[in-house]
């Protein structure tokens, strides 16, 4: 609470996702990914200036858009680019093991980082249809690493049940995490190493090196280990050194506001979550 500069959960979240991006890496985000879109652009302007930035489905190399749009395939996202490639070239890069990072979410995410973006029910008898994983099934296998994000970690309480996003077991695995019913990544001969970070609106996780189960690393100033446990169907590993995350600087927050005037970073949050404020 140094000088009382107010930061929203959406802004803090963008910074957390951006922190998973390393400089000099090749990075791509897919469709329906407003937060990774903002985080990648932010990272490119701050700590990852030499990252190779593939601007989503439109596949522009190092775009410099005047603002960020409500969709990933608008011409805004190819403005100021160095070059265009076709999307198959990005997948080739991944297949060769040379795409360092991507970002995936899911309606269900299990303790090994598998994600369901497809459906509840079965392919023959579908109860709830989600949009589908786009490139996620392939890229989750091929990317060197990837970041999982969800803004829906907090459970939804319905009359007769509690709906978890972080579940013990996904009804359907669209994108591959560390361990699946078909085997682990080594058994499956996958090229990539799987998810290494999970950013939620309640905390930030990595994975336990031994068991490959999600492991709590950072809390927000207004969350606790109990908050995490109440809202998670499985029992995550708790790192012995769980800490409150480092706050971004005022300059960083101002940059996010400047590159994202339409506030696409807020679109994924429930309105009540956006009331959470932090001070730096």
């Amino acid at each position: 609470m140094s000088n009382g500069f107010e930061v929203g959960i959406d802004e803090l979240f963008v910074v957390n996702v951006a922190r998973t991006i390393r400089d000099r890496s090749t990075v791509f985000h897919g469709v329906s990914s407003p937060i990774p879109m903002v985080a990648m652009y932010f990272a490119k302007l701050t700590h990852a200036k030499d990252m190779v930035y593939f601007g989503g489905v439109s596949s522009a190399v190092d775009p410099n858009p005047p603002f960020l749009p409500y969709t990933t395939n608008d011409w805004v996202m190819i403005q100021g680019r160095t070059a265009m490639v076709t999307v198959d070239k990005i997948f080739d890069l991944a297949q060769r093991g040379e795409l360092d990072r991507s970002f995936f979410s899911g309606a269900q995410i299990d303790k090994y980082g598998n994600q369901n973006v497809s459906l509840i029910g079965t392919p023959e008898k579908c109860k709830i249809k989600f949009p589908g994983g786009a490139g996620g099934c392939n890229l989750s296998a091929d990317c060197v690493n990837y970041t999982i994000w969800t803004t829906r970690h907090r459970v939804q309480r319905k009359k007769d049940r509690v709906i978890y996003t972080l579940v013990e077991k996904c009804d359907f695995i669209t994108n591959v995490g560390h361990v699946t019913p078909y085997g682990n990544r080594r058994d499956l001969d996958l090229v990539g190493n799987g998810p290494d970070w999970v950013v939620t609106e309640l905390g930030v996780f990595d994975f336990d090196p031994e068991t490959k189960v999600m492991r709590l690393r950072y809390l927000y100033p207004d969350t606790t280990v109990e908050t995490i446990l109440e809202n998670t169907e499985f029992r995550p590993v708790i790192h012995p050194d769980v800490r409150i995350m480092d706050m971004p600087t005022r300059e960083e927050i101002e940059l996010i506001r400047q590159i994202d005037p339409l506030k696409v970073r807020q679109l994924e949050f429930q309105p009540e979550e956006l009331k959470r404020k932090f001070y730096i």
Partner: protein
Amino acid sequence: MGIFVERNKLTTLEEAAKIVKDGDIVAIGGGLCLREPIAMLHELIRQGRRNLHIVGTAHGFDVDLACGGGIVGTVEETHVSFEQDFGLAPNYRRACESGAVKIKESCCNTIINQLRAAEFGMPFVPMRSIKGSDEIRFHPEYKEFTDPFTGKRVILVPALEPDVAIIHVNKADVHGNVKIEPPYVADVLFMRASKKVIVTAEEILPEEEMKKIGPTIPYYEITAVVHVPFGAHPTSCYPYYAYDRAHIAEYMRAASAGPEVFKKNYLDKYIFGVKSHADYIERVGGEAKMQLLASWKESHEKWMELFTYE
């Protein structure tokens, strides 16, 4: 890919749509909110086509409209939504959840590699990156196989050769030479992999003009050409027009309210109740609307406004 050498391929929406038969595998060009061949989909809905097997990567308005219009039997897409703007696709979800369409969900690189196999004239392509995912449950046709060179297990996916690709392009000439502004999404792959290709074009250029700018795809790969200005509306076709967010908002209200409301408030109003595509453009706001959607190029502020008006 077929070879089409006719000198004049210019035809009407009505005639070109007849190339698409009931049950065909149809690749739809563009993607999400960009350059989707909406005028051609309108015509297929008007002509009452049935049981189409739609293939593509990430789509939105087009696939949702086709499902709501009753022309789809199978969807082999990787993602269908209105992204962060309007979210889940109502007609597509209903069709999947009721069993009206068969779900054959896939993944982008899988489809791209299948199209490339068709383009190369090969029967299948090996992949690693489907293993571990339940996506395999949508595809009994995939085969697991031991790579004879490394001894590792791979998945063989068959070549994907759509019967027809329908693609909206920026410019064409009557011979079928085609110019597309990037991003191409999967359009070039679709054209090379499909048996027939119908293009609808914003502009028809004299052949000499096309030679000067250089086509993205040469004439012999294209089956039919139709001149349809604003043929991608309400999705975008830059540099001509941005996507029509107000129209999509109206669409979403109708589609979210159920099939009866969707029929009455959308299909009857904009597809069955219009005489031509030009009539449709009048109904969605005519010249004034088209000028508004072209205002993206005036300034970044104008462009941003198009993302916020409803």
